[in-house]
């Protein structure tokens, strides 16, 4: 049986109706140099056994390195029950079903997820999830422009200490909608956004201020001061937060006198494996006064005609299947399966479990920084508190050192040279609860050898 429903006659009739000679003509607006004619390394067709073999070989090629990489994706222990339950047939579907209310179990799970995220961030309402943390920040910027009706500038202040990829994605998603981003420099000694950086923007029409906590360097920003500065000037505050860190840190809803207006973040640390960078999921929460401007959907609890409790989609009247071009967003999605895993992860961990995970990650990172800065030629780039990442400065170029570490089976961290050349040879490292004292010692010894070898070369 053919799975393509259109016959050649159907296709010919449709092409004739729109005046195109061939299907290929529909793509002629794409410049030829951007078209890929053949995919090297992708065979025409393989059977299941062959695909399984190929994937096993490719997975084995990755090896089982000891990873001290963070920078937005974090290796945490995932209890076995998380994916055993997530992959049950009843849950194993990527999206909210189109007949959403027919799947009460899925809706209840999303409702529980929303409740957890709202409580974790101390905000009033959460949506059913976003594509990932970076796009959630872009969506938050668009939402802030809709919500802040006093500001006409559609101008967003973004510290340079916000994840570089998040800034790039937010720009890509919003630049054709007239949004502009102004960069706030970080204080060179502290690696955080100082009040002095805000001075040039006094009196300017600014729509929103983004604050990442902890920031890309792992450092803790002075969120109370920044939030109050923004609110005193009619500027909305967008918090970009790590959900694990929220078990220890003040949640965005309590920043400053009034709390942040929108909180977003990457949900991957909550039970989602690193998996070569995706799929992950984003989350978004907000205060009640802005809830109508929030993209995506919310699952609500209600009563049916017979008075029985049940779950239903609310706020969907502004989604694209109803509002088309005027929807609050045409780029957001709900990452149902990953949200399922995160909800089960949080249920198993509980508030205490998440707090212990966060505390252990912080403690391991302190041990890591203490160990590595004992190595000659290694110093901490910034002073002040951090969560589970830190920037180290080396006396040799980072790329070569990382290659040497990789040959010893260690992913040593992220080379910051492409993003922050002003820091010199700088390395962003991370340790979570998954790293043992022996792992940290192995990294220290390997780094020491790699640096000695680099000096000798």
């Amino acid at each position: 049986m053919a799975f393509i429903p259109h016959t050649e006659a159907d296709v010919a009739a449709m092409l004739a109706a729109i005046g195109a000679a061939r299907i290929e003509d529909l793509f002629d607006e794409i410049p030829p140099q951007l078209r890929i004619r053949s995919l090297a390394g992708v065979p025409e067709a393989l059977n299941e056994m062959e695909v399984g073999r190929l994937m096993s070989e490719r997975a084995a090629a990755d090896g089982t390195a000891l990873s001290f990489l963070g920078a937005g994706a974090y290796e945490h222990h995932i209890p076995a029950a998380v994916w055993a339950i997530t992959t049950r047939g009843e849950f194993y579907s990527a999206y909210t079903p189109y007949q959403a209310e027919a799947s009460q179990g899925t809706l209840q799970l999303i409702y529980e997820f929303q409740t957890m995220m709202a409580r974790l961030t101390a905000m009033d309402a959460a949506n059913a999830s976003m594509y990932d943390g970076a796009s959630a920040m872009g969506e938050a910027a668009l939402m802030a422009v809709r919500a802040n009706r006093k500001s006409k500038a559609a101008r967003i202040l973004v510290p340079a200490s916000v994840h570089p990829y998040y800034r790039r994605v937010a720009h890509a998603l919003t630049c054709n909608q007239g949004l502009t981003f102004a960069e706030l420099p970080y204080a060179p000694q502290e690696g955080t956004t100082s009040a002095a950086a805000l001075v040039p923007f006094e009196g300017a029409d600014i729509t929103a201020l983004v604050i990442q906590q902890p920031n890309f360097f792992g450092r803790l920003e002075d969120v109370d001061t920044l939030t109050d500065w923004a609110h005193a000037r009619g500027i909305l505050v967008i918090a970009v937060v790590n959900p694990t860190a929220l078990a220890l840190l003040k949640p965005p809803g309590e920043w400053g006198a009034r709390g942040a207006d929108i909180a977003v973040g990457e949900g991957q640390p909550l039970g989602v494996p690193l998996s070569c960078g995706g799929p992950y999921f984003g989350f978004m929460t907000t205060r009640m006064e802005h809830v109508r401007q929030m993209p995506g959907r919310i699952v609500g609890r209600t009563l049916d005609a017979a008075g029985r409790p049940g779950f239903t989609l609310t706020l969907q009247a502004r989604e694209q299947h109803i509002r088309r071009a005027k929807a609050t967003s045409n780029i957001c999605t709900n990452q149902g399966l990953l949200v399922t895993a995160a909800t089960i992860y949080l249920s198993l961990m509980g508030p205490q479990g998440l707090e212990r995970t966060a505390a252990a990650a912080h403690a391991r990172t302190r041990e890591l920084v203490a160990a590595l800065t004992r190595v000659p030629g290694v110093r901490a780039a910034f002073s002040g508190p951090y969560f589970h990442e830190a920037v180290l400065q080396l006396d040799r170029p980072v790329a070569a050192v990382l290659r040497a570490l990789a040959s010893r089976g260690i992913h040593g961290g992220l080379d910051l040279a492409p993003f922050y050349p002003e820091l010199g040879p700088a390395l962003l490292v991370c340790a979570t609860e998954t790293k043992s004292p022996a792992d940290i010692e192995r990294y220290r010894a390997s780094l020491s050898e790699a640096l000695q070898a680099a000096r000798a070369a």
Partner: protein
Amino acid sequence: MSQLPADLKYTKSHEWVRALTDGTVEIGITDHAQHALGDLVFVEVPEAGRKVQAGEACAVVESVKAASDVYAPLSGEITGGNPKLAAEPEAVNTSPYGEGWLMRLRPAPGALAAAALMPAAEYQKLLDAEGG
């Protein structure tokens, strides 16, 4: 059959316009429109001071099943939205021609005369033709 006050003017897109004594006009959606939308859960009204052109989308009425634009029946400057609707959007359902008004507007010079507005009887014919 929906009610149609004879002292109001109507548009094809189901808005009504009431001339106020101070020279401004009050604008809302008709009983027919609120009935078609169902129970409203949110109304977004324009800010005072916004200048609108006739036919421009300037408010949004949202029910549990749909969100619809409300169009300015005539050009002018918004003098204010109905503040009551933020907390009580259902006023549009219960009192579409009274407490459920959406916005007030000061017509641009000549805009009132130029606007494509219908008397109640003509709007009724439109509804009859639509099967309403």
